[in-house]
């Protein structure tokens, strides 16, 4: 029987109350949303917070909406809502393609966008999605609200820019015209973490790639991205040769480790193949040639 170590349980009914509770209980307190990352870690005693602050009551952080020239996703948005969102489907297919392969429908009913990002598992899928899209995280402390680029959000495995008395409010993604996006993941079995996964968006101007983002997870890519491959593609013609060269760069520049999911060379091979597919699909979608 797996049981978490004892903890104190608090419930926040507002963002301010959550911050006040974090401040009062100190560094050994943790926020819990869906709990589908944190509770399994607590059962294994890999996480042992002394106080859990339940923020499931913060339904005002559950939204996906256009705000100015960005799409904002509230931290309490459940994965199932991301998968089903017509707004996200219209602008970024990468979301539904990633969500479809995150855990299973029951877990997606409960797990949240904010929880996944703040858990900061090095194999997490949405981290690669938001890194590819160069989103930014909006974080609130008692002293005010600040914004952090998603590419500076992760400080290491299971560590983020969110401080001990702060809460992630939302993630914002720029809306881009003439853009296609895609997510490609290989897993050992349905619902598992990635062996490797690559997400991309490509913006097209005529035959030229005017902007591009590449997100990579589970293989030690710095900031869940590949800046070198993006630089290589930006301004170049949208050809199969350019895509192949960028995919090879992705494979070279990541840092996979050998584990039960496979050896290093296999993972690099996967990254190259998946990056090639994600970029090719993104280009076709940007051109309106693929659904």
């Amino acid at each position, binding site marked *: *029987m*797996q*049981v*978490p*170590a*004892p*903890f*104190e*349980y608090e*419930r926040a009914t507002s963002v301010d109350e959550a911050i006040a509770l974090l401040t009062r209980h100190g560094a050994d307190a943790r926020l*819990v949303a869906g*709990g*589908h990352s944190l*509770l*399994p870690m607590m*059962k294994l005693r890999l996480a042992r917070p002394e106080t*859990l602050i*339940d923020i*499931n009551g913060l339904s005002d952080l559950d939204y996906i909406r256009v705000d100015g020239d960005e799409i904002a996703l509230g931290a309490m948005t459940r994965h199932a809502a991301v998968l089903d969102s017509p707004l996200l489907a219209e602008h970024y297919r990468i979301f539904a393609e990633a969500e479809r392969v995150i*855990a*299973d*429908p*029951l*877990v997606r*009913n*409960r797990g949240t966008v904010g929880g996944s990002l703040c858990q900061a598992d090095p194999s997490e899928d949405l981290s690669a999605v938001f890194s590819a899209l160069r989103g930014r995280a909006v974080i609130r402390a008692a002293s005010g609200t600040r914004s952090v680029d998603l590419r500076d959000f992760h400080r290491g495995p299971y560590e983020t820019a969110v401080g001990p008395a702060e809460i992630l409010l939302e993630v914002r993604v720029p809306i881009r015209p003439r853009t296609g996006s895609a997510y490609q993941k290989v897993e050992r079995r*349905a*619902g598992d973490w990635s062996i490797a996964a690559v997400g991309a968006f490509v913006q097209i101007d005529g035959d030229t790639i005017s902007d591009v983002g590449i997100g990579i997870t589970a293989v030690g890519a710095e900031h869940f991205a590949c800046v070198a491959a993006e630089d290589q593609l930006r301004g170049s013609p949208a050809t199969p040769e350019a895509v192949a060269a960028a995919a090879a760069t992705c494979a070279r520049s990541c840092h996979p480790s050998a584990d039960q999911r496979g050896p290093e060379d296999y993972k690099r091979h996967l990254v190259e193949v998946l990056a090639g597919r994600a970029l090719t699909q993104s280009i076709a979608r940007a051109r309106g040639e693929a659904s």
Partner: protein
Amino acid sequence: MHVNVTVNGAETGADIEARLLLVHYLRNELGLTGTHWGCDTSNCGACTVWLDGVPVKSCTTLAGMADGHEVRTVEGLEGTDLDPVQQGFVEEHGLQCGFCTPGMMMTARALLDRDPDPDEATIREAISGNLCRCTGYENIIRAVRWAATHEAAARAADQEGAGV
């Protein structure tokens, strides 16, 4: 801490440790052992119950998170008669050992409430968080289809009876 949870329409309450999981609250505090406790790692789905109408894995939900909320378990499926999903599992031999069955049925009921006429691919996707260790998926899918077909027939008969 004290929790009050509406379970299958009835008020329940208990003084519990904060770390008590919802599955153990249902089974040990309330004696509702229809909800099965399986892998304990949010993989197998045997512990699936509804929380405010949404199927979730109760081994990865704290009982405290259900405080003030509504839970529906497999015991809450049966009305005057068996729920069509339950009847479907009977008719189509949808269970062998029966361990996954409560979770399967709670997921299937939620699916049919949202999508009364799901095709096979939709059913497979919907139950992908519920594992059958007997690998009896074919008959489970037939059971869900049986329920969908019979509910559609019942609805049509109701409408005819009402003169619609």
